[in-house]
């Protein structure tokens, strides 16, 4: 099986601090991977470097065996909710349509079939009733659903989500996880920066433990162990994991 994503020897620094050091891992198709690590472990930087939003010092990143630039249309990226200005004057349907801009073509206007695709994606996220709603009127959970709907219309093969579950309500969390599992079952690959160790094993079949470098990576059952968690988080989480083994 070909790798969806192949990262090898990746290093990067942020304001002169080396935040990623020789990061190497390979992601197989059809997996649902949770990326976890303490604050400052370089999770966001890793995504930024992979997506060429932040320069790398060394190493290579290959999407579907080629560069990100060439594979862009096959990669759906869901940035952190807080990375945009929700005061921007536009409505929900418009934001979801943005996911289709690549397919619509630059300098062209969206057509009815594009709007139908966007509506279908909103439907999947339970947001169809909000299509004409101003984005500033949305709750945090609704914003996240809109972002996910925008990624869905892209119809990518690999989805990368940056903390999609941060500060959302239980219903949204469930809706998002169900959507990600559906994607996985359809053969798509999903990578998620995640914060909650309690739910990690329930949500993801693969785990990437990161703290400046890859501590462990593999199927959740074999990698998500007390020992590895302690190595990732240092002594801060002592005692955790004894209950869940």
């Amino acid at each position, binding site marked *: 099986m070909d790798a969806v994503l192949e990262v090898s020897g990746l290093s990067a620094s942020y304001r002169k601090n080396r935040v990623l050091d020789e990061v190497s891992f390979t992601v197989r198709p059809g997996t649902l991977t949770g990326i976890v690590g303490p604050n400052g472990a370089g999770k966001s930087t890793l995504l930024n470097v992979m997506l060429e939003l932040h320069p790398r010092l060394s190493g290579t990143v290959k999407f579907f065996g080629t560069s990100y630039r060439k594979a*862009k249309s096959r990669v759906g990226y869901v940035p952190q909710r807080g990375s945009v200005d929700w005061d921007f004057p536009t*409505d929900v349907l418009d934001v979801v349509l*943005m996911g289709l801009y690549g397919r619509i073509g630059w*300098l062209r206007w969206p057509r009815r079939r594009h709007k139908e695709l966007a509506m279908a994606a909103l439907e999947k996220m339970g947001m169809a009733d909000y299509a004409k709603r101003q984005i500033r009127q949305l709750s945090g959970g609704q914003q996240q659903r809109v972002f996910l709907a925008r990624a869905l219309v892209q119809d990518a093969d690999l989805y990368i989500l940056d903390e999609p579950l941060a500060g959302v309500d239980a219903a949204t969390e469930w809706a998002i996880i169900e959507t990600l599992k559906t994607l996985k079952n359809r053969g798509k690959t999903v990578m998620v920066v995640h914060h909650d160790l309690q739910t990690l094993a329930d949500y993801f079949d693969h785990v990437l433990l990161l703290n400046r470098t890859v501590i462990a990576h593999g199927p959740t059952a074999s990698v998500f162990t007390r020992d590895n968690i302690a190595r990732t988080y240092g002594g801060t989480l002592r005692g955790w994991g004894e209950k869940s083994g």
Partner: protein
Amino acid sequence: MMAALSPNAQWVLFSTLILGVAAGIVGCLAHWKRQSLMSDALAHAALPGVVIGYVLAGVKSLPFMIAGAAASALLGALFVQWIRTGSRVKEDAAMGIVLSVFFGFGIMLLTIVNHLPGGNQSGLDGFIFGQAAAMVRKDVWMMAGLALLVVLVVAVSFKEWKLFLFDPRFARGLGLSGRWMDAMYTALLVLVIVVGIQAVGVILMAALLIIPAVSARYWTHSFGRMLILSALFGGGAGVAGTLISVKGEGWPTGPFIVIAASALFAVSFLFGARKGLLVGWVQRYIRKRRDARILDGNRIRRDERLPRTISEAERVH
């Protein structure tokens, strides 16, 4: 009204209309790029270029002066970026430095040129506060042409601007180059500024870029409509300001354009349909009345006075 104006004044009016439209549109882009103040820095930074262009041409030649203005405004933009990325100085301070240094340098050059033989007839002073009446037909054509170009560029790439301004990171993921859009944005901004400084002046040019956009925000929740409204407000302010200024001999245009734009802002701020002051008051009043009715109907308490709102009632309980 138009009939009472000389043909030249009509041309000037037409050019300030187009200029206002272009400034209103580019001002919207600046507003959502959260870089309104950048327009002020770049407008001031254009002054030395105007004077240098004049000196190089030897006569008052608008193409030379516009080219000079564009060059020095772009240099100013580069400086802002260079100071921001290359040092610990924040962007607002960087813009403050560029604005004052370039403007001071421009005034210095202007003073020198005005003391040269024949220099006091240069009309360069008009570039400080704007002197639309001094424009000749040829200038007007050039201004209107460049302003129309700006309007067309934004109209054609409307969808791209919306994406870029709302979510630049996602835009890059779709293959829309951030660097390219940034360059495009700076080019449009500089173009509007250099086109506008003869009519509005370097000091007040920023007002025409900032005020229409902010005013438009009070009327709509749609980016497209905001662009159109901002264009209308800018165009309206340009026309109104010019009309007032041509009434008097040697009156500067810029201040009147800015006053007209500010009047539009005041109206928008007070009566705007979205978050305007009056609408907000009325909405709050209606809500209070409704709350009070609910409380009245329920007769929750028979105190000396009934709580006026639900929140007040909760506090009493």
